């Protein structure tokens, strides 16, 4: 498998003609977006000024402001649609192909909600589910799929006004696991102990409603980074051997994000919380920017590389 630096070379060398073309498009689009936004802002301010004169409680001003904001958002989406499409076809698709030819890329699809829910990474009920950039295929014998996911829930205040809150936003990966197991093992970032210390945090972890029993792991570093819940104390340790714990710690280190892991239904599920939509083109920074290039190649390398990184392709005795 290609390393991040090899992929970055590929990005700058092989994709350079397309990148240049996209850069031109980006600059033109940027001016267009700034112009349209300026126009919408002026109109909105004008209307606010007129409405504001006779608007005692400010409801009208708020309404016009919100409307202007919504129109701007809609216009933005419409304007960048073609650019985004081209970027994904000309940059992301060849990058994925360069990593592994067997992988299928569908820019508008995402992992279905029932699979995400079945992973039990998050117990909160989902009210809105979206995503894109689905990649799936087999790497050796290991079936792998991942996509961008945004899962949210809705709350309403006393006035009935609704607001949306993110449950998870980032990369969701599902892959075959190379050991047999029957139950479920869920590994979450250790936020309780980090926030409340080991005594209260530990008690909170132990009494986490909606989760299985707490499984204390015998790797202090792992225990510090994660909290494990499992339906079977022995099975959880059968999956989380000392070397697997080490690999997961290394993986977390490399992603630099909070990661959520579960072993359910013969699969490993991984949620990497980036809190943004990945594999999207930039508008205000250059596509040739090194940091930008690295962020695309590294994310792809990390998600496809999981098979090698966690040795999911290692043939074990039990599952042939």
């Amino acid at each position, binding site marked *: 498998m290609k390393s991040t630096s090899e992929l970055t070379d590929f990005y700058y060398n092989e994709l350079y003609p397309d990148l240049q073309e996209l850069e031109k498009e980006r600059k033109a689009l940027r001016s267009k977006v700034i112009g349209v936004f300026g126009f919408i802002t002026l109109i909105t301010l004008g209307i606010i000024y007129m409405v504001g004169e006779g608007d005692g409680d400010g409801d009208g001003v708020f309404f016009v402001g919100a409307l202007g904001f919504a129109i701007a958002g809609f216009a933005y989406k419409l304007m960048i649609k073609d650019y985004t499409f081209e970027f994904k076809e000309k940059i992301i698709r060849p990058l994925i192909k360069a990593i592994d030819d067997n992988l299928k890329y569908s820019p508008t699809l995402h992992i279905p909600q029932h699979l995400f829910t079945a992973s039990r990474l998050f117990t909160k009920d989902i009210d809105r589910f979206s995503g894109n950039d689905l990649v799936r295929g087999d790497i050796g014998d290991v079936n792998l799929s991942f996509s961008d996911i945004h899962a949210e829930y809705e709350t309403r205040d006393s006035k009935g006004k609704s607001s949306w809150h993110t449950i998870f936003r980032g990369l969701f990966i599902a892959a075959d696991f190379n050991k047999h197991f029957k139950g479920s093992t869920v590994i979450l970032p250790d936020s309780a102990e980090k926030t409340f210390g080991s005594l209260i945090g530990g008690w909170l972890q132990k009494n986490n409603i909606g989760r299985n029993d707490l499984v204390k792991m*015998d790797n202090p570093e792992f225990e510090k980074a994660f909290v494990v819940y499992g339906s079977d104390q*022995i*099975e*959880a340790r*059968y999956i989380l*051997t*000392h*070397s697997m714990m080490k690999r997961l710690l290394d993986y977390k280190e490399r992603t630099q994000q909070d990661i959520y892991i579960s072993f359910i239904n013969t699969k490993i599920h991984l949620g990497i919380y980036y809190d943004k939509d990945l594999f999207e083109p930039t508008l205000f920074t250059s596509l040739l920017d090194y940091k930008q290039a690295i962020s695309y190649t590294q994310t792809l390398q990390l998600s496809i590389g999981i098979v090698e990184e966690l040795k999911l392709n290692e043939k074990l*005795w039990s599952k042939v």
Partner: protein
Amino acid sequence: MSTSLIVFGVVVLALVLMYNSLIGKKNQVENIFASVDTILKKRYDLIPNLVSSVQTYMTHEKELLSKVTELRSQATKPNISDEQKIKLDAQMTSALGSIMIAVEAYPDLKANENVMHLQRTLAEVEAQISAARRAYNQAVTDYNNAIEMLPTNFMASMMHYQRKEVFEISEGERQNVDIKVLFNS
């Protein structure tokens, strides 16, 4: 009057909670040991097959093979204590490890399908045993902590709870030795 009643209530509640937590920990140890036992038994069941498959070839390791058989018969005796089981397990692990290494010296054995299958099954069982030992050790550590730490230690001594032994995890196991590599070496 009411204050003393509240104090009395709190004390009783604390005692009940401590008692229940101790019982819970003791049961957890027993519970997991039962699972350990089941998996250990799985390994013992493999041994007769293993010994009969390799003994015709392994002329120099007769002693080793009879030791394994002997250990198995000891371990499968009824009414042996948990401590004895733990000790026998350690001996069994090392004896089986030696046999597996010895197999490498016999090309015919290495290529034998039955032996290969046995090796795989055994390695799988070993992985399960390793997980079970770690689970048991954690449960025992929780239990031992509870009977030695304040405030539960007073109640534990009244209940005649005693420290339990843990499985010794060998350095090799801690490194999580890759048995496959061992086979291929």
